[in-house]
């Protein structure tokens, strides 16, 4: 009988211990805070140059990465004057994997003067689920150009294919 009570006591104690552990773990799972920035963001942070791709005679590439420029001939507009009709042309909506990309190109005097995004990926609904997992220890800094020589460079090209596809279909409509 004594043994019986002793083991019950042990089990109950353990159960209480587990519950307590879980509770305190839950308490630690509060909303995370991005280690807040004591950095003053530079004032020119938003590039106000709206016209992409900006067309210039003989400009061979409107692609914005040096890497991409190699395939510019087939995919980006070579803007010889008069190649395109004036007007505003809406491209097809192209799948950029995590959402659609759709562009609208404006042509004036045969040149592309503006490209606007009518649609780009948006999804913010499940924030809480991601944030509530644990307390991250994130840090921040203002980005700064580095002078180091590197062997290779990592950068985004994710939506370029969808962008090119949508722009191309807009320009197909604009073609004389």
């Amino acid at each position, binding site marked *: 009988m004594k043994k019986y009570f002793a083991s019950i006591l042990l089990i109950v104690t353990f159960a209480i211990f587990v519950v307590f552990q879980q509770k305190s773990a839950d308490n630690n799972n509060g909303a995370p805070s991005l280690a807040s920035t004591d950095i003053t963001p*530079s004032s020119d942070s938003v590039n106000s140059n709206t016209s992409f791709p900006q067309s210039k005679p003989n400009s061979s590439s409107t692609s*914005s990465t040096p890497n991409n420029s190699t395939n510019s001939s087939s995919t980006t507009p070579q803007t010889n004057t008069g190649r395109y009709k004036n007007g505003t042309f809406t491209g097809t909506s192209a799948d950029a994997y995590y959402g659609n990309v759709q562009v609208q190109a404006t042509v004036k005097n045969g040149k592309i003067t503006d490209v606007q*995004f009518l649609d780009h990926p948006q999804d*913010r609904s499940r924030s809480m689920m991601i944030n509530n997992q644990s307390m991250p220890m994130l840090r921040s800094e203002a*980005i700064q150009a580095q002078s180091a020589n590197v062997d290779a*460079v*990592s950068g985004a*090209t*994710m939506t370029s*294919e969808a962008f090119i596809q949508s722009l191309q279909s807009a320009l197909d409509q604009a073609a004389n």
Partner: protein
Amino acid sequence: MKQTKLLMNMPITVEIVDQLKSKVIFDKIYEYFREVECRFSVFRKDSEISKINSKEIEHPKYSHEMKEILDLAEKTKRESFDYFDIERNGRLNPSGIVKGWAILQAAKKLEADGIKNFYIEAGGDIQTSGVNSEGKKWQVGIRNPFDHTQIVKALILSGEGIATSGTYHRGQHIYNPFNPTVPLTETVSITVIGPNILEADRFATAAFAMGKDGINFIENRPELEGYMIDQRKVATFTSNFERYVKQNVFA
């Protein structure tokens, strides 16, 4: 020895440091990427993925590679709270996972040929191995999304994979007319370092889709480190990211 070719709509660079018995190895790698493009490109009507989307091919007849990619996509979907989802409007687009997977398979082919020191880069995603031609670990930059001629970080990698997901147009003056109140802290790019390029790529893609929460998601996975850049030109990075950063030394 280094070569760059345009495949899968992006430049693919292979640099091999080891003494080569034959340059045929480069052809083998590029041939492999060509096969991947033929199978997985949603922009080609004759690809296996397009035929699956047009219901010309039924599940039992999917290739081994296709099944592997679909399994990986399903796994990533689960691990990312459904943020990573290759299905949209009833059509499959696995391009968010194929690139990293293909780079890793290509790296395995080099290793099988006894090559230890190399890197493979496809459209900004990189698998490193061993050391560079100077006998040092690979030095990899993170591109400045606001000025593509610059890098904003120099990292030291050897064996890891690094992938960046983002949209360069967000760095410009763009707004979504359906949602004009997009916050200024919008994420421009997120770079993820992982144990290999497949892990880095699939989680970079998932994290980017999460917006500014993406960096928390990366922080919560101990095998990954991340560097997220927002529209204020402020970077937020994970707690152990700095162990990969090349310290500024005047040399």
